[in-house]
């Protein structure tokens, strides 16, 4: 459900002031949630273990969830590990993000058929699947909201994103633990989900019980809970659920110093620090691929061998590639430092000018999945330090780096 839209997919007007329904679901009944979603014709996608990590893929039942699995993440490192308990959601997000489903990595825009003197364009029917996302983290909810701003509220509307987004139901999960590269608290995006979900789960596990409290965040969510017909939480249960995120908040692996961040970057376009990070950065584009808000794409026009059928495809792209900025004769950003600078400046500074908030949600994926362990929070620190050092060395000189 898109919070700002006047009517939900099920046709019921979504008012901002509905009272939120809260229920308790025992672990052994978890599949009832799956069944309720399936009855509404949702295909369910969510976390599952594959090839040594947790990815988002289609789920048949709660058995496909990464029960008992956890991960160890730090800059440049991801290890899937067996957890100490049987939590269903005891992990931190892996490389996948929900943008796989909302803005697919490859999608055909239209076909064209040669026709005598010219050609005809054949638009593709809207084949957007109806999906329920299970296990959306608060940072991911915020990432989706950020992409909503980009694709739905910035002038033009992307019909592919809109169609998928409208049909999607978001079942979020509050975080009970934080990962080695998480910094959602710095960015104000978690570890507790405030809004943007249809349902949000909080997983509770102690010696005697394993259960979930579920809260509805939209009329579609409320409908599902009403159908599940579960009891409301007791005061004890509600209080315990409220404390789950405290542990996560205290465990953050990284911290972004956000003070004056936008201005720091725009002042330091000519900082010598960019040369330093460029000695490490491979411009491999991993960070942009795993980032849940990065949205750059390219288009490819192809024909088949007969030359009578053409297609236009939209595919993910990255500002780190050399030809991303190519114009007649050369690329504008041919050096690695200019491309790294572009990415981090857009993410943390100019994104705010364009879309009203920073583009970073503090999920830490770019830190984990960088093959040379570049940490965006450390880069900000280093940029600040570099600026201070230059000011200290030459206090009389006006800091004119962005003249």
């Amino acid at each position, binding site marked *: 459900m898109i919070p700002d839209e006047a009517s939900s997919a099920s046709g019921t007007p979504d008012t901002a002031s509905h009272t939120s329904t809260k229920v308790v679901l025992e672990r052994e009944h978890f599949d009832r949630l799956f069944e309720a979603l399936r009855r509404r014709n949702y295909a369910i996608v969510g976390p599952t273990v594959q090839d040594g990590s947790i990815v988002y893929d289609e789920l048949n039942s709660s058995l496909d969830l990464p029960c008992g699995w956890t991960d160890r993440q730090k800059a440049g490192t991801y290890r899937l590990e067996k957890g100490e308990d049987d939590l269903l959601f005891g992990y931190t997000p892996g490389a996948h993000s929900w943008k796989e489903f909302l803005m697919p990595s490859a999608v055909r825009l239209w076909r064209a058929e040669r026709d005598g003197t010219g050609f005809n364009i054949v638009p593709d029917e809207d084949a957007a699947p109806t999906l329920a996302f299970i296990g959306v983290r608060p940072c991911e909810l915020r990432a989706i909201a950020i992409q909503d701003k980009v694709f739905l509220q910035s002038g033009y509307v992307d019909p592919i994103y809109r169609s998928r987004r409208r049909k999607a139901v978001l079942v979020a999960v509050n975080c009970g633990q934080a990962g080695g590269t998480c910094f959602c608290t710095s960015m104000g995006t978690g570890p507790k989900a405030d809004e943007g979900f249809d349902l949000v789960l909080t997983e509770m596990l102690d010696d005697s019980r394993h259960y979930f409290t579920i809260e509805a965040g939209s009329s579609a969510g409320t409908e599902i809970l009403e159908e599940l017909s579960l009891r409301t939480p007791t005061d004890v249960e509600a209080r315990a659920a409220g404390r789950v995120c405290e542990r996560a908040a205290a465990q953050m692996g990284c911290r972004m110093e956000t003070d004056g961040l936008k201005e720091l970057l725009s002042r330091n376009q000519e900082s010598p620090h960019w040369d330093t990070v460029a000695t490490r950065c491979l411009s491999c584009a991993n960070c942009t691929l795993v980032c849940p808000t990065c949205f750059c794409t390219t288009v490819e*026009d192809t*024909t088949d061998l007969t030359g009578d059928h053409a297609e236009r495809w939209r595919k993910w792209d990255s500002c780190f590639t050399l030809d991303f900025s190519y114009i007649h004769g050369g690329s504008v950003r041919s050096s690695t430092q200019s491309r790294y600078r572009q990415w981090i400046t857009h993410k943390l500074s100019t994104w705010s000018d364009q879309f009203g908030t920073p583009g970073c949600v503090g999920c830490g994926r770019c830190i984990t999945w960088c093959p040379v362990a570049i940490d965006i929070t450390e880069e900000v620190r280093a940029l600040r330090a570099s600026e201070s050092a230059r000011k200290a060395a030459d206090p009389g000189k006006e800091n004119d780096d962005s003249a």
Partner: protein
Amino acid sequence: MLPHRHRVRHVGKETSDTFTLELTPTEGTRAWSFAAGQFNMLYVFGVGEIPVSISGDPGKPGTFVHTTRAVGMVSNAMRKLRRGDVVGVRGPFGRGWPVGDAKGSDVVLVAGGIGLAPLRPALYQLLANRESYGKIVLLYGTRTPADILYRKELERWRARLDVDVQVTVDRATGRWLGNVGVVPSLIAKASFDRLNTVAMICGPEIMMRYTALALGKRGVPAEHIHISMERNMKCAVGFCGHCQFGGHVICKDGPVFSYDQMKGLLTTREI
């Protein structure tokens, strides 16, 4: 956004590497209007799509005129099109020249090379409402006399009594008896009210930068100087990220920008 089919009415050579395409909507496609300075995305079947400025008369909607250089795969394929061929058109996109805002002022148009093509619609509009403007000055520079674009039209405009047209080339052989020198050098000699002038510059980035500097030296405020920026473009609707320039997105916030918006960016390398 789907391309709308347009038929090629005419393909004409302008200079050795420049040509003009005239497109009319096919049956079922409505004609639409455009603002001077906007561009279309033109698609050649199976080859690809490129952004090309519209260089026709905004007062004559219904035909899209595009002058462009044949420098890549798509533009070279476009050059080989024949009358009757079909081209896909998406657009018009972008923010155009402030022709309306310039009413009551002198207007200085400075074009370099192919840059005259996106400025021509502005000149058509200015001339169509001539009495709304003060002095109109057109300064045009290009590489050699053989590269002069729209030569006959330039001569016609020059012959008018109410437009000041100066042309220069970077280099020439003896047969050329006109100006030889760079475009910014024409600024010092042009006559306009520096405090009440709107300047519109289009051409290679270096040329625009130095022209803007020359205008600034003459005392034209930066917010009255406008340039047309160019970057790699794929979607033209602000989603693909390719045309990001500083915090601006050229396909939506531009391609026309005021010089004071651009100042820091133009001198930052690789931005």
